[in-house]
């Protein structure tokens, strides 16, 4: 088993570099724990924090189990609603990651498509798309998200709005992140486009979209992979920020950002655990994903070695 691993890592450049980089290994373990915990939260968590009926207001604001007035049932305490904080964090992480993944998928599909087309066709299409990207870049991500949220609020009936909040968040975050993909993909497509394997496809008379997606795309996966990881962290952070500002998910389904927002209200009244634990979770997750992204960027870029 170990031999097989070693053999694989010797043949695979990426695996080889990974197993020689302790920081990347630690980051990967933390990221896997965070993501695994979030995905498995319905089975791991002691209580379901979304089930309002199970909440008891008498349990609210209980400090962590190891402090004097702690309760063994709630290992890291409860929030103001009487929710078990650990369960809430696991569920919240799940929600944050769900929005993050959805948003990043939306952003990458949009950005990669636009980038490929701009890089491949060039000319006027490229000029127009890149000016749109410039406009998008000049709007802060939060502003875009607030804008989308505002429009959604105006268009959707009140009851619908809460249900569709995840979709609204996804679109908002996706819209503010697609530019990264589009610009990088465009630049790398420019390089690939002039390579002779692309020319040989053109000479054959292959459809441009087939050239873009079956020939160029696999060759530019490296940089895309890097942005995917780095921007996943950004998306999770954006979701947390928006929820913190109260634009995000409804309060009865707290995400990490919602939990942190609730926590800040109690920060100076002694109930420190409500803000510290969700924040620690968020920071750990973001840092580990970012470190992985950095590792990928260096490993996939031969000049950095």
């Amino acid at each position, binding site marked *: 088993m170990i031999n097989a691993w070693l053999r694989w890592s*010797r043949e695979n450049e990426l695996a*080889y570099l990974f197993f020689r980089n302790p920081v990347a290994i630690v980051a990967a373990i933390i990221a896997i724990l965070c993501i695994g915990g979030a995905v498995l939260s319905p089975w791991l968590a002691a209580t379901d924090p979304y089930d309002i009926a199970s909440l008891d207001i008498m349990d609210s604001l209980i400090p962590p189990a190891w402090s004097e007035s702690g309760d063994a049932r709630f290992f890291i305490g409860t929030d103001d609603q009487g929710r078990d904080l650990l369960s809430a964090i696991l569920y919240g992480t799940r929600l944050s990651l769900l929005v993050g993944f959805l948003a990043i998928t939306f952003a990458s599909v949009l950005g990669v498509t636009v980038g490929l087309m701009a890089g491949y066709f060039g*000319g*006027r299409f490229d*000029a127009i798309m890149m000016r749109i990207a410039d406009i998008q870049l000049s709007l802060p991500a939060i502003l875009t998200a607030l804008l989308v949220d505002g429009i959604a609020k105006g268009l959707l009936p009140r009851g619908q709005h809460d249900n569709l909040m995840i979709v609204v968040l996804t679109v908002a975050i996706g819209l503010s992140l697609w530019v990264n993909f589009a610009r990088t993909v465009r630049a790398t497509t420019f390089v690939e486009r002039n*390579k*002779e*394997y692309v*020319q*040989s496809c*053109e*000479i*054959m*008379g*292959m*459809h441009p979209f087939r050239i873009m997606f079956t*020939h160029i795309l*696999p*060759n530019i996966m490296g940089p895309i992979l890097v942005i995917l990881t780095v921007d996943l962290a950004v998306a999770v952070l954006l979701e947390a920020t928006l929820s913190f500002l109260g634009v995000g998910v409804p309060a009865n389904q707290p995400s990490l950002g919602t939990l942190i927002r609730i926590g800040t209200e109690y920060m100076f009244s002694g109930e420190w655990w409500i803000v510290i634990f969700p924040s620690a979770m968020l920071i750990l997750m973001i840092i580990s994903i970012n470190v992985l992204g950095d590792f990928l960027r260096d490993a996939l870029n031969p000049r950095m070695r």
Partner: protein
Amino acid sequence: MTQLLAISNLSVKFPTRFGVFDALEGVSLDVNAGEIHGLVGESGAGKSTVGSAVMGLLQSPGYVASGEIRFTGRNLVGLDSDDYHRLRGDRISMIFQDPQTSLNPLLTIATQMIETIRQHRKVDVHTARQQAINLLKETGLNDVDTRIDDYPHQFSGGMRQRVVIALALCTEPDLIIADEPTTALDVSVQKQILDLIRTLCTARNIGIILITHDIGVINEITDRVTVLRAGRVVESGTTEAVLGSPAEPYTKALMAAVPRLDKRLERFKNIIDDEPTELDDTHWKVEGASAGYATDWLLTNNERAHTSDALPSVSERPAILSIQDLEVTFGASGLGWFNRSHGVKALSGVSLQVMPGEVLGIVGESGSGKSTLAKAIVGLVNPSAGRMTFRDSELPPGRQRTRAHPSRREIQMVFQDPYSSLNNRKTVEHIISEPIQFYGLTDNESQTRKLVASVLELVGMPQRAMVKYPHQFSGGQRQRVAVARALVARPEFLICDEPTSALDVSIQAQILNLLKDLQQTFGLSILFISHNLAVIRQMADRVVVLQNGQLVETAGTESFFNSPQESYSQLLLRETPSLTF
């Protein structure tokens, strides 16, 4: 003669995670003052490693494992970096391959030269400037007094290389290492630079190590030569002795692989084998696949297939491709809504014809429009004027050619760089079967698979190659795959754009042999583009010379090489370094 440099038993090792790679093993050579010592070998032979080892610039993690490098009696191995720094540039200089990148584009020539001179000599700016001017004059630059304040991009490639040489001479070194100093230059400039190096060597009594892959260059100017292969010295001695009567089979094979300018050979003989194929590669077969199957398949439904007995009638047939007054302009009113420019004419008024079954050679220096011509024919470039006729029907230019146009299958192309012409993320099977499937040439997948295996065998590759990826092959093998890809489309007309200029001579000989064989078997019409006149002589039936986008001369190969009519053709032929023994 005083001995300047003596390398004895030098071994350089590069530790990698796959084990220690011996870049050099027991290399010994010496250089005297006033002598040019040539280092020749194929890529990976360790030529440049010798240069870096002498300069103390071995790339990490490489190191000198054993041996001595004695420079005027002093051992350079193990010298500390400060001492080396003083030696480098001061007493040992280097001339690099590409004058585009070895000069700083943001500084004027004067700044760069004065800085170098003052780094090593305590002189004031004016003296340094005067020295720089003298040096540039010595290297044959014109109008030095005014041009010294120009930037590198304002010089042509040859002029820039003269500046680089002047820069190397700044500190009056005893030894110069010239690493492929003329490889990036056109033949007509190459000759001048080589002459300059020779003159400087004699006049200043400098020892020069000239590193090159081109035996023609070695023959032209070196006094002594060392042939390297895989980090070991194969043969060493005076140039006359080594090239005149090579003792080692490798040297003989290397020389046999060099295309000759003085006569046409039917095939390259006695060439070096590519790396041996692994044993399990030869046993792996697709059922029913063989080179014969590929030949039969390529010849069926193929009315043009003719053997050599049909060749005499070539002149009576109508041309397969004829081009009239083709003009290609780049950059004319392209993107801008505001600034409409007239652009640069890459080709103007080019007319030529390719007969069926003929190899037409296109020759010219860089910028002469050779590749633009190829791109115009395949429709990658939009001509601004002119007509193209292919097989009696008009060939729509550029964008107007529909994707389903039959010529897209009938005209195929083999590119220069086999490292970029194959998609690295696809298997060889995928790469070769793509045209088959795209043009719908087979009935089912098993036939396609059989055909891919067969074609691979036809171009001299093991069938097992089809399950591998391009990066697992050498440049020559990749080029074979590229030829196979062009072949399976059953083309009538093949364009080869510098198909061997990215390859070593021995590999070049193999690919040229392959193309000759295929041309004879399938009676292909080929447009063969090359900057190398000797390659053209070996391949082409007729020759077209291009200069600055204009057609200079069209002639039959034999008459062109024996009595070129135009002065430019004569110049090209005269300046090409050759092996004539």
